[in-house]
């Protein structure tokens, strides 16, 4: 290589990678993007205690139907069947300029960890929820508030839980937690 070209290419690299010196600054010579901010924004809030809202209609067939749909599906993109009334597959958000973006609605995917009536490919990380009402509710081992709290924020019952946190994380609204509670507690 000619000395002149070597010098020029050295300068060119320095513009992007050097801190003034002629040699390459190796501490800046590789990608190291910042992830701390992304993680900080994404952190789960501390465990929170809830009381089931009075507006929860546990015996309402429409609520049970919605709960069932949320329980068995992962998100609106993967869900095959049409959702029941009151649920949609996509969420539309408008930004300041009025531009609408459509994102898949996230559901509970509870079957990933739990078996339950009609489960397809149910997991076994969590307890089997089949005949839950007869086994746990009618026998007074569990009550509505326990189930609501468990689904909303499982850490109150078990600080080391492996279960998903569904209300404190902001993924679902209280009425969606009502729907899930209604479904789990219903005789199927």
């Amino acid at each position, binding site marked *: 290589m000619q000395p002149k070209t070597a010098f020029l*290419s*050295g300068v*060119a*690299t320095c513009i992007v*990678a050097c801190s003034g010196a002629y040699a*390459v600054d*190796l*501490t800046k*010579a*590789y*990608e*190291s*993007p*910042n*992830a*701390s901010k*992304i*993680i900080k*924004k*994404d*952190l*789960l809030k501390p465990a929170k205690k809830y009381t089931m809202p009075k507006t929860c209609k546990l015996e309402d067939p429409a609520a049970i139907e919605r709960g069932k749909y949320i329980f068995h599906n992962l998100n609106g993109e993967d869900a095959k069947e049409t959702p029941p009334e009151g649920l949609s597959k996509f969420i539309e958000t408008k930004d300041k300029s009025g531009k609408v973006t459509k994102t898949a609605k*996230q559901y509970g*995917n509870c*079957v*990933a*960890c739990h078996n339950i009536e009609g489960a397809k*490919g*149910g*997991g*076994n*990380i969590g307890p089997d929820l089949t005949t839950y009402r007869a086994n746990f509710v009618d026998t007074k081992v569990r009550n509505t508030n326990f189930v609501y709290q468990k689904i909303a924020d499982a850490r109150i019952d078990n600080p080391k839980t*492996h279960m*998903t*946190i*569904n209300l*404190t*994380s*902001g*993924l679902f609204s209280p009425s969606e937690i009502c729907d899930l509670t209604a479904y789990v507690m219903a005789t199927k």
Partner: protein
Amino acid sequence: MKGAIVATIVAVSIAFAGEQFAMSDADRAMYEEMLQNNPADIFVEEGGELFEEMIGGEVVMAKFLGIKEEKLPNYIAGFPRYIKKMGAVVGLDQVMQAILAEKKKKPLKLDDPKMFSMLAYVKSLANGEKINININADKHIKASYKLGEKTYMTQRGGRGLSCNSCHSKDIIGTILRTQPLPDLGDNASGGTWPAYRMTKSNLTTLQKRFQGCMENALLAVIPIGSKEMVALEVYVNKLATDKQKEIAIPGLKR
């Protein structure tokens, strides 16, 4: 010939019954065939050529790292490491970026498929070596391990999950939607990536695999090469080091 194929399928089905039941019988047969003939071998080979051409081969890398060439395999099996002149704990891909910069060559992005191939090649130089990350080597790697552990344990995202929610000791082996949850130490995750992923029909790196889990579990995906990603790699390599696992590149994954 046909008889032989049927026999293989039967044998494989028995070997994998229970263990890999997320796979169909046909997939299992394909898996067995690929174990003999990993489709990613070609990427490793291509990576070797690129490594020679762009980096200058093992001599250059050993010199950059300040070690003898014959020490390279063992040294590679201890990555990520603190590299003083780079000022941080880094992966082998980042080392290659620094070599390119030092040689004033055209830079290559960490997520460039060429980089994945080169990474697979370089790591394969350590095939058969025990994964040997030493988290007490210096204060930097110690801190990186701590950050890795913290990142692994941090609950976040729409479902409030952490890596540990699905890969902790008390939960591995249970089933998440037809998939057995793997122990990242027993699976030698630190020594089997880059791997061929059958579900993606492509070569994938460990950090890309981390991103896959983040995406599936609704954790905000963090970028490749960030100090948290390198730290996660340190943490996962430590799990495999504790289980005395060996490097075997390219891996073959579902």
